[in-house]
């Protein structure tokens, strides 16, 4: 294809996005669009899968049968989200094995939040309330993103995420209406998860490298800082209802702007975690790599069995 032809295709493509038309897997797309989507969708899928670990950690110890069932259902939903997202990503011409390879080698990232440990039961509440809450704010706009398979996956993901968030908040509410020990547990969880949740929106706007392009392709509708502010404005009143204190002495409602002002995020910690040196990065990756490597004989067996079955079918037919 000549440069002129490509330029022409690009113009048609940009015009389609501007008209809010969905781009589908067989449509022509710029290489950069394809690569950016592979990066973002696979990262999103990896986050769902790695995100099963901090919560899976409490399945055997959940304090009531009802909570245990809800937690199991939630982790199952997350595995399902991972599955849709990997499938959506595969429509862009990358295999799930390649994506796993990128995750295991550290080439592909996952949400930095899952590198924090879940140390008490209250963390199941805090993760649902704050982490899923932040995820929803990030993800709701993606239901209208330009790439069709991603947008459709997100519709279903967002519905379930809202349900998880309510469940998480309900865990916090129960703890806060409980004994002093339970309330203390809830406050401690908020203290530990608050700042990492704010970091889920990514670096500040002036440090964010992909924002401009992502806005153009409707992968993003608002900037990191705008979304973070939206999360804070929404979450602070919820903490008030719980009777919990946000661990930020600079947090204060600003009458003029109508928003909450808040303190400085520890960006050194953020980059440390993103670069692989957070509290659980090594453990999370080891769990994934071990599962993959120890499962190899199982996957090989499934392949071998499928081939044998197919051969027997052919032999029978002839």
């Amino acid at each position: 294809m000549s440069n002129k032809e490509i330029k022409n295709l690009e113009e048609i493509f940009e015009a389609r996005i501007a008209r809010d038309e969905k781009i589908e897997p067989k449509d022509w797309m710029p290489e950069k669009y394809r690569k950016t989507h592979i990066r973002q969708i696979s990262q999103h899928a990896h986050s769902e899968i790695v995100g099963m670990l901090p919560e899976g950690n409490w399945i055997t110890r959940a304090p009531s049968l009802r909570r245990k069932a809800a937690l199991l259902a939630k982790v199952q939903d997350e595995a399902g989200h991972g599955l849709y997202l990997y499938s959506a990503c595969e429509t862009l011409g990358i295999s799930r094995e390649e994506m796993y390879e990128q995750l295991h080698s550290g080439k592909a990232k996952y949400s930095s939040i899952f590198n924090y440990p879940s140390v008490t039961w209250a963390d199941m509440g805090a993760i649902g309330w704050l982490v899923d809450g932040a995820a929803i704010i990030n993800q709701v706009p993606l239901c209208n993103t330009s790439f069709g398979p991603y947008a459709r996956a997100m519709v279903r993901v967002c519905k379930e995420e809202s349900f998880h968030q309510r469940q998480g908040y309900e865990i916090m509410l129960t703890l806060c209406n409980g004994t002093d020990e339970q309330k203390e547990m809830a406050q401690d969880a908020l203290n530990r998860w608050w700042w990492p949740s704010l970091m889920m929106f990514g670096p500040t706007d002036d440090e964010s490298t992909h924002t401009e392009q992502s806005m153009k392709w409707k992968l993003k509708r608002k900037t990191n800082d705008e979304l973070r502010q939206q999360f804070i404005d929404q979450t602070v009143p919820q903490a008030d209802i719980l009777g919990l204190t946000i661990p930020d002495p600079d947090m204060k409602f600003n009458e003029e702007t109508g928003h909450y002002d808040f303190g400085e995020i520890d960006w050194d910690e953020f980059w440390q975690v993103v670069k692989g040196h957070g509290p659980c990065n090594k453990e999370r990756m080891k769990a994934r790599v071990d599962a993959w490597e120890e499962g190899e004989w199982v996957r090989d067996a499934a392949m071998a069995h499928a081939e044998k079955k197919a051969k027997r079918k052919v032999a029978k037919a002839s």
Partner: protein
Amino acid sequence: MKSQEKDSRFHGNLYNYILGIADNSLILAQRLGELCGHGPSLETDIAITNISLDLLGQTRSYYQYAAKLAGEDKTEDDIAFLRIEREYKNVLLVEQPNTHFGHVMARQFLFDVYHLMLMERLQNSQDETLVAIAKKGIKEVSYHKRFSSDWVKRLGDGTDESNQKMQEAINDLWRYTDELFDETEADKAMIDEGIGIAVSEMKETYYEKVSEILEEATLEIPERKYFTRGGKKGVHTEHMGYILADLQYMQRTYPNMTW
């Protein structure tokens, strides 16, 4: 015997009979819950979590019924979290560790075949609540059995390595199968009432059904004549204490709280 005494004996036997079924589901659900996020593929992770959730749902229905029988404001959680090892009535099979995926599937398969047979029969019980639980559970358990049988076949008739691993797992777990057909005092009392299922009568068919799948999976049917038992009487393997330590940690550490 006075009728009141008779009533209370009946209730006690029914209570124990229900736990004899439900404890199997709880302990197996707990074992499967350990695997979350660690399976050989995303699809098996989803399926195993799904099975765990089904079993836990069944457990809750049984325990809620048992709690009602026990009275004194007992709840499903009291039954799950406040009993000691010696009071648990699950068979030894379900408490066996998740050694590797072959063991997980072998344990599941050996239990599912039994479980499905039991549910089919429980639908004809004289106890309406048990019938209702069985009717709901049977759909789930049929799915479990299909899943585990398919994996026994895949692994048995897969590669040499998987065949060997599956065979080892079946051999290891075989000695726990005979206990499935033991009848406790509560079982016998409930069989007499037309409520309980005579599991001893299921034995022959069970081994036929299991053998059929094992043959299809190109696996050998173990010849072992020596079996280990005790779970139904509350005498468990050494694994059980650790399972309960995890399961009960929160309720034991923070008693009498709502979660």
